[in-house]
C-alpha cells in the first residue's frame, strides 16, 4: 500500500487493459516468448498449407533424394529415405503441441481442483489429497512412462496417460499453497459471513486469485511436457514411425551423425525452439503478474 500511494492518481485511472499491455510490451522476455509460441502454433495448425511436401509425412520413399544437405529445395535437407525434414519437423511440432495440450488439459484442471479442495477444507481432505500428491511427486514422469510402456504397449496414448497421471501433482501443490494463504484473507471470511456456498468460495472467490499462477505454471510446463514427450519418442516409447515426431527424428538422425548432421540437429533445434518459447512466455508472464501482485 505504501508503494502504491507513491503512484500518481492519474496513472491509476488508466484502463486495466492498457496497463497490462504497456507492461507486457515493455517485457522483452514475454514478447519474444509469445512470438515464438504464436509462430509454432500457427505453423502447426497450418502445416498442410505451408510445408512444401505434405505427402512426406507418411511412408514415402525417395532414394534418389536421400541424405540431401539443406538447400533451397529442401530447407532442412532430407532424411535416410529422402523425405523433406522441414515438412516433417513442422508436422512433428504439431504432435508435440498436441501432446502438451492433452497432458496439461487433463492435468491442470484435476490438479487445480484437488489443490483448492485440500487448501480450503484442510483436515482429512487435506491429509489424503496431499499424501497422495507427495507419493506421486516422488515418481519421475519419465520413469513412470517407461514402466507403463513396459507393462502395456509403447505407444502415444499410454505415454500420455503416464505423464498426465503424474503431472497434476505439481499443480495441486501450487494451488494448495496459494489457497491456504488466500483462505485466511478477509474477503473469504466476508464471503462466509455473507452466506456464500462452498462452491462459490472455491470457484468464484479463490480460483480467480490463482489464475495468474496457473497461467505461468502451465506455460512453463508446456515446454517441459514437450521435452518429456520428445525424450520418450527418442527412447522409442512414444510416437511410432512413420508418423513424424521431433524426438523420433532426432533418434533416427543420430545414427547418421556427424556426416548428415541436419537429420538430428535441426529437429533437435526445433524442440529447443518450442520449449524455449513456452519458457520465455512463462517467465515473462510471471514478471508481469508479480508486478500486479504488488498493487
Amino acid at each position, binding site marked *: 500500500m505504501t508503494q502504491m500511494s507513491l503512484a500518481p492518481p492519474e496513472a491509476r485511472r488508466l484502463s*486495466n487493459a492498457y496497463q497490462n499491455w504497456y507492461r507486457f510490451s515493455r517485457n522483452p522476455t514475454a514478447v519474444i516468448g509469445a512470438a515464438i509460441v504464436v509462430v509454432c502454433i500457427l505453423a502447426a495448425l497450418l502445416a498442410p498449407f505451408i510445408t512444401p511436401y505434405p505427402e512426406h509425412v507418411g511412408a514415402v520413399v525417395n532414394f534418389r533424394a536421400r541424405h540431401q544437405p539443406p538447400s533451397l529445395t529442401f530447407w532442412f535437407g532430407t532424411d535416410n529415405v529422402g523425405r523433406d525434414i522441414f515438412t516433417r519437423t513442422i508436422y512433428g511440432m504439431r504432435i508435440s503441441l498436441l501432446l502438451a495440450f492433452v497432458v496439461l488439459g487433463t492435468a491442470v484442471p484435476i490438479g487445480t481442483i484437488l489443490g483448492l479442495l485440500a487448501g480450503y477444507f484442510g483436515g482429512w481432505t487435506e491429509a489424503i489429497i496431499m499424501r497422495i500428491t507427495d507419493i506421486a511427486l516422488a515418481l519421475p514422469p519419465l520413469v513412470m512412462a517407461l514402466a507403463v510402456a513396459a507393462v502395456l504397449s509403447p505407444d502415444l496414448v499410454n505415454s500420455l496417460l503416464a505423464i498426465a497421471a503424474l503431472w497434476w501433482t505439481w499443480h495441486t501443490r501450487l494451488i494448495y499453497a496459494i489457497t491456504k494463504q488466500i483462505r485466511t484473507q478477509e474477503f473469504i471470511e466476508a464471503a*462466509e459471513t*455473507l452466506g456464500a456456498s462452498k462452491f462459490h468460495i472455491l470457484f468464484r472467490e479463490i480460483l480467480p*486469485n490463482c489464475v495468474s499462477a496457473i497461467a505461468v505454471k502451465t506455460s512453463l510446463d508446456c515446454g517441459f511436457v514437450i521435452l518429456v514427450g520428445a525424450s520418450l519418442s527418442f527412447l522409442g516409447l512414444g510416437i511410432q514411425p512413420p508418423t513424424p515426431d521431433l524426438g523420433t527424428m532426432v533418434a533416427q538422425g543420430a545414427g547418421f551423425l556427424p556426416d548428415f548432421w541436419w537429420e538430428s540437429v535441426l529437429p533437435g533445434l526445433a524442440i529447443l525452439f518450442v520449449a524455449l518459447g513456452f519458457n520465455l512466455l512463462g517467465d515473462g508472464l510471471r514478471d508481469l503478474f508479480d508486478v500486479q501482485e504488488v498493487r
Partner: protein
Amino acid sequence: MLELKNLCKAFPIRNAFGRKTGALQAVDNVSMTIAPGDIYGLAGESGSGKSTIARMIMGLETPDSGEILIDGRSIHDRSDGVAHGRRVQMVFQNPGSSLNPRRTVGQSVAVPLDAHGFPRSKRPARVATLLDMVQLPAAFAERYPHELSGGQKQRVAIARALAVEPKLLVLDEPTSALDVSVQAKVMDLLTDLGRQMGLTYLFISHDLSLMRNFAREVSVLYRGGIVESGTSDTVFGHPSHDYTRLLIASVPVISAEEAALRPVIPLIDGELPTPEQLIALRQAADRQA
C-alpha cells in the same frame, strides 16, 4: 436486538509439538444488551477480545460457553428458516482486503444476493440500487477494487453488507484504514443509512474520539472482560475505571478543551504507565487501604 449472555472463549496455546500447554482467555464472561436502533460502541486495544466477540456474533467462531441472542433467539437456532446472514452482517476493518481483488464491485455486492436466492434477473438493478444507497455511480459495478479509493471500497463493503437488508450491522473499525476527511464522510453515510433503514450498529473501535461522537452506549474491554459501560457521555465524561482513564488520557487531541478533558495519569519514572502497571498500582493501593 442483540444480547450477549456470559460469553466466554479461550484459545489453546500450543507448544512446538502441537500439544496444548495453556489457554488464552480471549473473551471472559461478557454480557451486554443492545436495543433496536441503538449505536453501541465497543472500545478496546489489540488483545482486548473485541474482534473475537465480533467473530462469534458472525458465527465465525463458536463460544465456549454463553449465549448470543438476536431478537431473543439464539443465533444457533435456525428453526424459523431465516439464514443468519439475513439478520446480521459485518463491515470489516480493511476495505483493501475484505474485497476480492479479482472480482468486480458488482460481483462482490451480488455475493449475498446469490447466497440468499435473490432472483438472477433482478440482480443488476438491485446492485445499482445498493451502489446508489452508498452514493456511488452504478457504473462502478464494472470496476475492480484497485481502481477505487479506500473510501469508495468501504462504501462498496457497506453496500454488500446491506444487500439482504439485515437489521444489525457489526462495524469492525470501519474507518481506521481511511484518511480523516474520508472517515467523516463514511461515518455520515453510516449515520444516514442507520436512520433511513432503522439499523442497529455494534461499533468496534480503538478510536475513542470517534466513538464519543458516534456511539450512544459504550463498553470498554480490557483483556477479554468489560471493565466499564454506560452512555457515551458518562463513560467519557466521568470514567470510573483506571483503564478507561488511561485510554482517554492517551488519545492525541487537537484542542485545549479536549486536552483539559483528559484525566491526569501519574507518571512512573517519567513515563506513562502501561495498563498493567496502572492496574497493579491500584490493586496495591487497595490492599494498603
